[in-house]
């Protein structure tokens, strides 16, 4: 393989991995606080993309405003799912929460199928996002540069919130013990809402980037991406935000590398993300960045 193709594949992997990373952060944060794998998270990503689509195509809002609005509303949807579905089960066994999460996932998918139909719709990508740059043979699009930058900025922002603010301290405290935190005069439900809002907002950003790169919006779009982002979160070490980002990049690069070096296996590239997941679970169940699960969070 020549250097040019290699560099091109690296660019492809970088942009794909960033999108998994954005979605993986949400999995990891909710898990860190509630010990819940929120399987509805991939569908929140779909909700974000659909809202952006609706605001732009149906209500004709300007792109930036539509994105902002859909990110905010997705955050509210995240809070709402927590209040309706997970809050009544705080004292219930973890398995009930997990089943509820799957139920919410099916509900969102089917609700959007009823409203929007199953036919994929083209996402109206603004002109300036479609610009193509050719740097001595390696081809970038605006979005393939923007996605990694936005991911890193958002990662820093999340780390700032977690380690430098009062709320972040509360979130970290919550991840140790919800009951004790309640005794310390912290409103645990409020803090959990913040976690869901942050995670869902990131998922919405990921979803919007996803449809900018692959402009087709449909109710089932979050399923496979959500599963891969979940794999990314586990590979990176579920509960660790930096780990989630790292895991996202690993999964993204794996997919690209499989196609680049073993073209005959291209049809099985999805499987590799999950093979990775199985190996990590076998040999280092806490993931790459995961520390001892019961001692430290984020």
């Amino acid at each position, binding site marked *: 393989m*020549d250097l040019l*193709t290699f560099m*091109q*594949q690296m660019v*492809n*992997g970088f942009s*794909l991995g960033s999108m998994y990373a954005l979605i993986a952060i949400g999995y990891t944060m909710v898990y860190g606080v509630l010990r819940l794998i929120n399987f509805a998270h991939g569908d929140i990503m779909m909700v974000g993309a659909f809202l952006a689509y609706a605001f732009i195509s149906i209500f004709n809002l300007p792109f930036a405003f539509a994105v902002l609005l859909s990110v905010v509303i997705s955050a509210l949807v995240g809070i709402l799912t927590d209040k309706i579905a997970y809050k009544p089960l705080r004292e219930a066994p973890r398995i009930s929460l997990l089943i509820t999460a799957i139920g919410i996932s099916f509900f969102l998918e089917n609700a959007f*199928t009823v409203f929007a*139909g*199953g*036919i*994929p*719709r*083209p996402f109206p990508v603004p002109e300036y996002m479609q610009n*193509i740059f*050719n740097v001595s043979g390696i*081809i970038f*699009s605006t979005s393939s540069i923007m996605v990694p930058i936005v991911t890193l900025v958002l990662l820093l922002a999340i780390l700032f919130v977690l380690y430098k603010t009062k709320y972040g301290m509360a979130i970290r405290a919550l991840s140790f013990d919800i009951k004790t935190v309640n005794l310390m005069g912290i409103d645990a439900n409020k803090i959990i809402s913040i976690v869901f809002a942050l995670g869902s907002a990131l998922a919405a950003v990921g979803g919007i980037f*996803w449809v900018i*790169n*692959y*402009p*087709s919006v*449909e109710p*089932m*779009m979050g399923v*496979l991406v959500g599963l891969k982002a979940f794999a990314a979160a586990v590979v990176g070490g579920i509960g660790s935000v930096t780990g989630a980002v790292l895991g996202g990049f690993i999964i993204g690069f794996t*997919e*690209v590398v499989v*196609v*680049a070096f073993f*073209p*005959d296996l*291209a*049809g*099985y*590239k*999805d499987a590799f993300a999950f093979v990775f997941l199985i190996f990590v679970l076998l040999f280092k169940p806490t993931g790459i960045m995961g520390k001892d699960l019961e001692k430290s969070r984020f």
Partner: protein
Amino acid sequence: MRKIIGLSVATALTCTMALAKEINVGLILPMSGAIAAYGQNAEVGVKLAHKLQPKLNNGDKINLILIDNKGDKVETANAATRLISSDKVVALLGPMISTNTAQVISIAEKKHVPVIAPAATNDKLTMRKMYANRVCFTDSFQGSVVANYALKQNKKKAVVIVDQATVYSLGLSKAFKNTYTKGGGKILKKIRITSGDKDYKAIISQIKKLNPDIIFLPLYHPEASMIARQAKELGLKTTMISGDGVANQTFIDLGGDAVNGYLYTDAFDYTNPPTKKSAEFIKAYQKQTGSNALNAFSALGADTYNLLVNAMNKCEDPTNSKCINKEIKNTKKFEAVTGIISIDKEGNAIKSAVIKEIVNGKPVYKATVNP
């Protein structure tokens, strides 16, 4: 006296009923769900054909009973069973995709009820089946049409992108390979993908290195449109060609600018009506909808109905399913909306295909290829 009047009224009623019967015909289509676009288009065609010709030559009225199968396997099987056992239909029209059609055929075969499929192209569907028929071409014919067309354009090096998860894609790529290599073409590489995936940039970077003359994509529209888009983004300018899996507006909507220059095979082109019957049908369609852009699936839907009525007219008892099936298979040079159709012993339609190119977001007729 009263008794006599009552009796004569009753006799009169039964007589008129015996004179003009109502015959049930079952219609199974995906009206909702992921492939609803296919089913809704076909429904328009069947309903319009029924409106134009609601009665048989002997005056019997045809009653269409539509059931939505949602593109789902279980729903399809339920619909077929219900139509045959409780609605007593004499024949079944539909459904759209090959997977669902196989289910309808296996149920209808046991009950000796003929099926006419509008758009299921998989080769194996009609093999060793007595009651399975279709008005569309098969994948092997479609694949060879594409291969011959590519060879004629002097495009001798091809890359094939196969979706290993659909029977349609596997069958079509095999047919393409046979004709293409026999005709002196060379397949540089066969790349496997899985439907549902969105990111093909790594694959496209690979193809760029291979530098083929043409790329054959036997795929459905969600995957093909994403590949076309990302190819444009990465500067891959090779001509792409597909089968009828991309022959719909959603493909152009999803692909945007990137699908300009894209070639594909289709069953029918409304700007070039192949028969007098199709020109008439397009006129009726325009009267009803205000547009003459008759979709290929609507045209094929109309053909299933017209072919059935033609066969029923030839039977002395138009409710005899065995006779109807025999007459369907005896159809020769039938003037249909999509062209002249003959049905062979296996129930396959022998007919021509159309090649189209997308120019400025509109499908443009390029050529007709005869079998």
